[in-house]
């Protein structure tokens, strides 16, 4: 490294980014790990080992995550395959799938499942009529079912993209060499799309480990890691954080192990498609067409059920906790906008600020990482990816541990909520930004500089405009995931700073389903409006890059 690089503004900006990341990502993480070892009272790890409930929670979480991952793959991969390779009636509906996971608050999905399959659910009752007793929905049955029907979309999205890129000529070649069509597909296509399937399956695994909302509602007596971590955090408060930190550390270790496996799989070799010609969808007709359309449609319909529930619930009269189905009202929505608009205002304010900060930060830092690498760049790149491995609950515990009192007291302020949002969602923007920048040739910027425009100005005037469409799409994606964030913000928020997801969670907990539905419907609107506007006005397809 020469002296000139110290004089470049880029070096100092990279250093500043590293400082921010160290303070807001590394420091909370270090705080968790150190509190688990040296926190107040007996060591967290010895308490962990000697408490059967915690050990059980860890094992249950691993079993649950494995089961959900397997089922998501079983649903997601065939669905992706039929949508990518065939055309049939109602296929357009399946394009809605990626939206569902982002749009429907998990708490509401869990509540809807209870209305269907709870002890008194519609399906449970119908089955009981014909003499079949379903197992209790609380516990394994409910957790696995509801999480699978939310997370399979991640497998679907990942696989659909991979199949789309697969070169159909390979398959034709295999067939012309005498391999039967079905076998040709398995032998030739599977190795190529397998890394994508595995990567999305591991994503499902980590998301299940970190899942908070559904676990809280459906686990009942079954201890799960995220639930016991949250309970420990609530019981310990912020004065003594040993146990919550230890449990959070366990979750970090699990996710690190998963990421390690992921790396190992990826490093074991990859089939690159140099120049692909995607397959034309084959139209399916008759019985086969009806069967495929029917089963795909069923999956979509089941996933969309919660949306129907909240739409009906939002306009239904309730007397206390009791829904008066069939009686319609606008009172619930009046509460959201007029009587108690604080959660809406808070959500819009905090998520708006957080989206702005995280997009600005990730645009600048991806530029630094890709175009101006220097000695500290690898550290910036690595640390900025860490939040991907932290569940919301872990991040919440970490922020409370790091910024409660001390030299930077942030607990009890709105800043800590915004901070939690930014840290959780910034890595998405970073990945997006880096991918875009790799495709922008250095020459255009160099041309600008050689014509006498200063480096920072060149970035603003030449590189930024090229990045802009991708940045806009990343901003919308960040917005949708930020405004629905629950698991970190529910730990760090303070009285009067409830956001929409927190308010929905609390209302469902107190049984006020009508109000919860109204807030839920508004949350869905708040998420969808920017997506639809971007699509209609600017032709940005937010989900194309994912």
């Amino acid at each position, binding site marked *: 490294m020469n002296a000139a690089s110290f004089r470049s503004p880029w070096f100092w900006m990279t250093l500043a980014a590293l400082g921010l990341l160290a303070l807001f990502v590394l420091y909370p993480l270090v705080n968790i790990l150190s509190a688990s070892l040296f926190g107040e009272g007996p060591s967290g790890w010895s308490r962990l080992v000697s408490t059967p409930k915690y050990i059980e929670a860890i094992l249950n979480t691993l079993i649950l995550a494995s089961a959900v991952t397997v089922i998501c793959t079983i649903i997601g991969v065939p669905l992706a395959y039929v949508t990518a390779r065939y055309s049939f009636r109602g296929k357009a509906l399946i394009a809605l799938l990626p939206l569902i996971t982002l749009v429907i608050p998990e708490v509401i999905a869990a509540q809807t499942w209870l209305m269907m399959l*709870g002890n008194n659910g519609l399906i449970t009752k119908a089955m009981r009529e014909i003499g079949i007793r379903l*197992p209790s929905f609380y516990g394994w049955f409910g957790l696995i079912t509801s999480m699978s029907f939310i997370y399979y979309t991640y497998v679907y999205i990942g696989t659909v993209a991979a199949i789309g890129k697969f070169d159909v000529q390979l398959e034709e070649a295999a067939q012309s060499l005498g391999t039967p069509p079905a076998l040709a597909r398995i032998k030739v296509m599977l190795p190529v799309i397998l890394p994508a399937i595995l990567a999305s399956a591991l994503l499902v695994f980590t998301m299940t480990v970190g899942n908070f909302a559904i676990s809280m509602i459906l686990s009942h007596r079954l201890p799960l890691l995220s639930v016991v971590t949250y*309970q420990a955090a609530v019981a310990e408060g912020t004065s003594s954080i040993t146990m919550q930190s230890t449990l959070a550390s366990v979750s970090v270790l699990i996710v690190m192990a998963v990421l390690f496996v992921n790396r190992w799989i990826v490093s074991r070799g990859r089939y690159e498609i140099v120049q692909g010609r995607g397959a034309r969808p084959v139209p399916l007709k008759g019985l086969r067409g009806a069967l495929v359309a029917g089963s795909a449609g069923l999956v979509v319909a089941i996933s969309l059920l919660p949306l129907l529930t909240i739409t009906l619930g939002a306009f239904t009269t309730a007397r206390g906790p*009791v829904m008066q189905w069939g009686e319609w009202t606008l009172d619930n929505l009046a509460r959201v906008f007029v009587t108690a608009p604080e959660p809406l*205002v808070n959500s819009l304010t905090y998520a708006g600020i957080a989206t702005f900060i995280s997009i600005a930060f990730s645009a600048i830092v991806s530029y630094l990482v890709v175009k101006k690498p220097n000695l500290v760049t690898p550290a910036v790149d690595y640390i900025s990816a860490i939040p991907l491995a932290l569940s919301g609950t872990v991040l919440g515990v970490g922020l409370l541990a790091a910024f409660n009192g001390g030299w930077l007291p942030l607990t009890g302020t709105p800043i800590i909520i915004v901070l939690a949002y930014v840290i959780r969602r910034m890595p998405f923007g970073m990945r997006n930004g880096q991918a875009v920048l790799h495709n922008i040739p250095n020459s255009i910027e160099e041309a600008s500089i050689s014509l006498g425009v200063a480096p920072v100005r060149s970035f603003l005037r030449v590189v930024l405009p090229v990045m802009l469409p991708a940045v806009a799409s990343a901003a919308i994606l960040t917005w949708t995931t930020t405004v629905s964030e629950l698991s970190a913000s529910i730990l760090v928020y*303070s*009285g009067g700073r409830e956001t929409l997801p927190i308010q929905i969670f609390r209302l469902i*907990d107190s049984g006020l389903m009508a109000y919860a539905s109204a807030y839920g419907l508004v949350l869905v609107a708040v998420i969808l409006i920017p997506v639809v506007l971007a699509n209609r006005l600017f032709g940005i397809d937010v989900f194309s890059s994912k």
Partner: protein
Amino acid sequence: MKFHSIGAAALALGLSIVPALAKEPVLYTSNPVPAVEAVQAVAKEKVGASLGVITGGSGVLLRRIEAEAAAPQGDVFWSSSANTLGAYEKFFEPYNSPELSAVPASLRYPNNLFQPSNVHLVTMLVNTDLLDGVEAPDSWADLADPAWKGKVIVADPANSSTGYTIAWGLAQLLDKKTYEALVANMVVAGSSSSVPKGVSMGEYSVGLTFETNSYAYVDGGQKELKLVYPSEGTFMTADYAGLVKNAPAGDAARKTIDALLSKEAQIELLKVAFRRPSRSDIKIADYVGLPELAEVKVAPFDEAAAAKAREAFLAEWAALPKAGDTE
């Protein structure tokens, strides 16, 4: 509607940025929205200023009061049980509200450090649709019959003060054999709110919970639900409000306590949230379909002993077999 809402949102945004100019009392409350709204109007009239309301779990709010002790931001805390408040005594100051004269002496907190704002009674919430021809239970002993195995839901005493009150009370009231047989029939829920929800959704036949939670479903029009006050006696516990030490609103803070204890506020609270008044001069039957306190057999309940024995009791409780375990 749309523009109105945007206006309201903008207004609320403005309010949240500009700190309140007037010295209005700030209420820290763990009570649900309908209960807060019920007393807000009364308080406005009695205090002459509108209340600032901060909501949150009682543990969270009490810790906040502790953290703000050097420069209090809140004036009045409302409400929690004596055994929760006990640990935070030093952050509150006694106040002998004139309204306390209508509250029975048995409910008063020593020194008037906290003011009883309402009382809770434990009830059985029974879903008569699920009885399958079996008589509805009338006593705790009825529920100890193996026929009720897996049909009775209660909140986890380790996580819920409602659950703790019930479990501790039953352990004192019943003989060991009946108590253990009853516990063996119970399914333990993670939170107290899932108890009435579970019964109203028809998932469990009987839920053990406070009257205020269970009656909301009866009042909502679910005719198949009914409340049972067990014949051996049920348990009563009071909710307290407290005046934060060095409350910034000064006299207005005291007036807020007066308002919370006032007959008007307690009637509103009874009507909207089904909270049984702490005052003895309100006739329940005039407002809701709940029995008068005098008609209900109440078993003795020692809050201090319950708080003291907590750890040991929870350990014993955890070791007892329950219905949820075998499934």
